[in-house]
């Protein structure tokens, strides 16, 4: 999973590799400076030698300039490569989502995908930047500083070594325990967020039942649990600072004491002693940094696996090897079709055999869950059949190029989705090259022209996100117009006039017949009025075709059809929301 993420570095690879190089150079400068400082003190200040002060001061300035340059370069390259990696990860995820089939889309929630593409990617980006800037710096600093100590005085360095071992063990014990607690904290956070989310989501229920106090006590409990766990973890971590102080102070004392002896014995200079003090801090700081890296890695591992999951998701539908792109006729054939949404799940369709002639208008009716929509989805290959085959224009849909098939077969989905942008822009989803006249024509056919014209901005009216500034029925008509602009050979309306009143519904069907003759039209509907005039009507029941026939035939022979008809026309179960 780390590999998947790392692969996305691509064009930022050079920057990624160069960052530690600059960092290392910066570290070398940082390590050399205290050494020069020592000379400045010993050979310059303590010797009262002003030229030496200038010389070593100059050297120090030079090193500082270099260190600054390397530092800025390291920072820049780290920012460049980590943000680049993040951008590539987002792009890779989005690109793969575009390849997702309908069943893949069903698998992830929208909110989940958004979090993966934002929060998780940001967390990977921050971790990468930090790793790049510290993972080399810390060990290098440690090694170099210690080397310098050895170089200055071998015996005194042993003190550092002892301190390092002590601090490492202490930090390891502390952090490994804290890491476990931090994972617990994250879970507590989730619980707290769930309480808020649920409360906000069901606020009407809360208020209706006057359960504010009950909700508050639920929240307080979650807040208390989070508090207790945070206190436990952070109490442990609050040993960190005093522990560092203890070790640093200990080193200072020891180095002072033994250093004094060495100086008196003439084995060490005061300048060297000051340098040693600087190195104490460096060594200890690098150890702290290493421990932070450890913490950061464990924290971002979760994000890495969530991002990798989306990138690695293999879409369960692919174009055939030699796709057929030519489609002309509008005939449809179902041959022994079985279909289920989940592998091994209950069949949504069973044993479907149906031939639809080119140019025919077919109505599909049946109760909720009877398989009407599933039947429609299979025609434009939104899902693949489990058994049997679906043919369009005499060929299995799996032999066609998917884009070509979906250009030829236009489906208006149940949920009418529009995108932010003008009405015209939304219509041109159907055909980017459609002229204004063509768009108007399509809207006339879908009975949308009138209300669009009535809007102050007409076709340039800007849709809000989700198109919620027009009514449900208007949205559905726009969706039909959008589909018509494809100039499809087959048009599928999946319950797409449910929010349109019955009069307009009839007018739409009438104008479809008149203005677009020759199109095979499949109308899936709840309302019997929407399909009554179809050439043939398919009655679905429990995933199977119950009967096929004209309105009159079915009324005479089919029980289910007659029952629906009676309920809807005599008013017994009529839908008031016409």
């Amino acid at each position, binding site marked *: 999973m780390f590999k998947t993420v790392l692969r996305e570095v691509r064009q930022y690879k050079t920057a990624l590799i160069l960052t530690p190089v600059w960092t290392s150079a910066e570290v070398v400068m940082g390590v050399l400076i205290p050494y020069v400082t020592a000379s400045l*003190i010993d050979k310059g200040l303590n010797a009262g030698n002003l030229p030496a002060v200038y010389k070593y001061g100059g050297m120090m300035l030079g090193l500082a300039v270099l260190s600054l340059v390397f530092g800025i370069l390291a920072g820049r390259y780290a920012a460049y490569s980590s943000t680049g990696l993040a951008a590539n990860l987002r792009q890779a995820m989005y690109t793969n989502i575009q390849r997702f089939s309908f069943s893949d889309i069903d698998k992830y929630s929208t909110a989940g995908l958004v979090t993966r593409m934002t929060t998780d990617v940001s967390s990977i980006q921050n971790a990468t930047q930090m790793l790049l*800037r510290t993972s080399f710096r810390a060990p290098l600093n440690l090694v170099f500083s210690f080397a310098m100590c050895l170089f200055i005085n071998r015996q005194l360095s042993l003190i550092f070594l002892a301190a390092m071992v002590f601090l490492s063990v202490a930090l390891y014990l502390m952090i490994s325990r804290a890491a476990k607690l931090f994972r617990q904290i994250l879970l507590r956070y989730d619980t707290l967020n769930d309480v808020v989310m649920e409360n906000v989501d069901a606020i009407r229920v809360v208020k209706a039942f006057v359960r504010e106090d009950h909700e508050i006590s639920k929240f307080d409990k979650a807040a208390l649990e989070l508090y207790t766990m945070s206190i436990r973890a952070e109490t442990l971590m609050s040993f960190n600072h005093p522990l560092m102080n203890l070790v640093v*102070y200990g080193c200072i004392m020891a180095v*002072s004491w033994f250093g004094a002896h060495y100086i008196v014995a003439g084995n060490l200079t005061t300048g060297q002693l000051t340098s040693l003090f600087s190195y104490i801090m460096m060594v200890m700081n690098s150890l702290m940094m290493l421990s932070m890296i450890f913490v950061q890695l464990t924290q971002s591992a979760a994000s890495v696996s969530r991002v990798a999951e989306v990138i690695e998701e293999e879409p369960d539908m692919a174009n055939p090897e030699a796709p057929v792109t030519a489609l002309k006729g509008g005939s449809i054939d179902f041959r022994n079709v079985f279909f289920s949404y989940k592998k091994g799940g209950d069949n949504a369709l069973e044993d479907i055999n149906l031939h639809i002639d080119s140019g025919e208008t077919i109505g599909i009716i049946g109760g909720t869950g009877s398989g009407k929509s599933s039947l429609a989805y299979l025609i434009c290959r939104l899902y693949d059949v489990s058994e049997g085959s679906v043919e369009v224009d005499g060929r299995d849909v799996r032999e066609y190029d998917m884009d070509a098939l979906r250009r030829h077969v236009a489906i208006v989905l149940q949920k009418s989705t529009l*995108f932010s942008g003008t009405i015209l822009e939304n219509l041109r989803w159907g055909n980017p090259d459609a002229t204004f006249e063509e768009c108007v024509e399509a809207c006339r056919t879908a009975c949308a022209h009138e209300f669009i014209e009535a809007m102050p901005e007409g076709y340039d009216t800007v849709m809000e996100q989700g198109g919620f500034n027009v009514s449900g029925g208007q949205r559905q008509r726009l969706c039909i117009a959008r589909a018509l602009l494809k100039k499809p050979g087959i048009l599928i309306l999946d319950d797409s006039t449910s929010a349109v009143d019955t009069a307009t519904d*009839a007018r739409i069907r009438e104008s479809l017949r008149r203005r677009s003759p020759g199109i095979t039209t499949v109308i899936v509907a709840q309302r019997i009025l929407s399909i009554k005039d179809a050439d043939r009507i398919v009655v679905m029941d429990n995933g199977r075709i119950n009967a096929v026939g004209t309105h009159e035939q079915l009324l005479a022979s089919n029980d289910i059809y007659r029952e629906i008809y009676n309920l809807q026309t005599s008013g017994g179960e*009529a839908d008031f929301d016409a």
Partner: protein
Amino acid sequence: MPSMMRFGGPHERVPGSGGKVSKTVWRLFRFVFSNYKVSIPFVAICIIVTSLTTLTSNLFTKTLIDDYIVPMTETGSTDFSPLAAAMLRLGAILLVGIIASFTYNLLTVFIGNGTLRKLREELFRHMQKLPLSWFDSRTHGEIMSVYTNDVDTLRQVVSQSVPGILRSLVTIIATFTSMLVMSPLLSVISLLLAALMFYITRRLGTISKKYFTKRQENLGLINGFIQEMVTGQKVVKVYNHEEDAMRQFAALNENMRSSVYNANRISNIIGPINANLGHFGYVLLAIAGAALALGGNVPLTLGTIVAFLTLQRNFNRPVSQISNEINSLAMASAGSDRVYAMLDEQPQKDEGRTVLEGNAAEGWNWKSPDGTLTPLKGLVSLQDVDFCYVADKQVLFDISLTAYPGQKIAFVGGTGAGKTTITNLINRFYEIQDGTICCDGIPVTDLALSSLRKSLGTVLQESKLFSGTIMENIRYGRLDATDEECRAAARLACADSFIRRMPNGYDTVLAADGGNLSQGERQLLCIARAAVADPPVLILDEATSSIDTRTEKLIQEGMASLMKGRTTFVIAHRLSTVQNADYIMVMDKGHIIERGKHAELLALKGKYYELYTGNQIV
């Protein structure tokens, strides 16, 4: 220290500030102080002690060299006992420092987490009192983000920035005093350098804040795009729009990348610049010091210079720390602004003093503040009610109706006709603009909100459930209901049989919002939940819309016994639910256009007849 002094004044803007530290941050500080009146001075003392011991350990270098090592080398003495004594004194001081450091770190943990907890609880408590219009006007994501992102940025302020600034200030003052004592002249140079450093860090903070703002904007854009496109992904596929979507995404993504890159690039510079400015200052002071000392005009020992250089190093660190902390305070300002904006929202007015008294067995009474009792009968009346959700978009016009105790009133009409809105007004989810709504003759505004809502049982259009067991969900209607009462309610709502078929029966744990139940099953549970509350008045908003015809027939009986003797408001699509109502209100565009019994309305041959026969197009 002119720059430092300015920071001391709470309401002054820091020069070259990376954005303003918002007033709400100071409000947060006051909140913390008022909650931890004892601990905070103690923390301050501990921080001062810690900083002073650190300083002592730094100053010890000078003492060590000047007072012990140099004399010893000069005299050739090998008597280390004076040094040993000094080291013991130092050790004792450092030990005190370590204890102080531990104490304040521990206290900060308690203060920080305690403050966050109090703040969260206050937020949630306050949110429960906010009117529904507040919830309607923002997305769930926005509200959640206050609890997660915004409160979390305050953690940084309380447990890091403030102690950090305090620690740095103490170190700066103490260090600078020692520096002044050692050499006023060098101190001035050092101060100038520190000011420069402070200025640069703040300046970089400002620049980087600009990019961070840009980054937030781009983040918003890309969030919105993903949200919209992923939600409409099926349409994208059906229209072969993938390429286009990817192109648009790539453009947004590139903007996002470059703004994050710029923001990070600038903030990554701050570290190296501060570190190396420190080196520059060091060299500058070394040269100046050496020149002065060797010039012989100024009383400066070489040991003093060496010690001064060490101090200078310790002086720089807190200066850059303070400016960094101020940068992060400015960044946290946005978070505290949002937290306090939510806390400052006006709660729904709840000034009614008449409360509900009694119980289901002996009957309920309205008790007014002067002690008079009015029996609760379930008489609900609306008189000339006008209402709009947002100003200028009136959705209800001049609604008048009276529901007598035990009557069943049905509302029918198209989407947006205002049926649900009327029921939302009866339980005072929203405040009306004009007219009056009374329960048993008492205006609803005179009733305590909680009492009013307790008298009404509501089954809402959207069947919302809570995570927890099925039993807990039913009991939500009345918290002191026994298991048997809950089961009886479930039987009444025809939910008992499907519940018992579940793996753990009534103890089955529901996923968030009852995700593992079908829509119809969730509605049955909601009905059971309302039944267990046993309220005098019922509001059923599309309560049976997703229940299939067969089950609906089954629960018909249960519903009938539930409605018996209670005033009931029903909103329904299905005729069977509406037919036997005492009164049917036909609504259209916010008006009641027809009212009467089923047969009367049919005879009227108006809108109801049209809806009923469904043949207006023939």
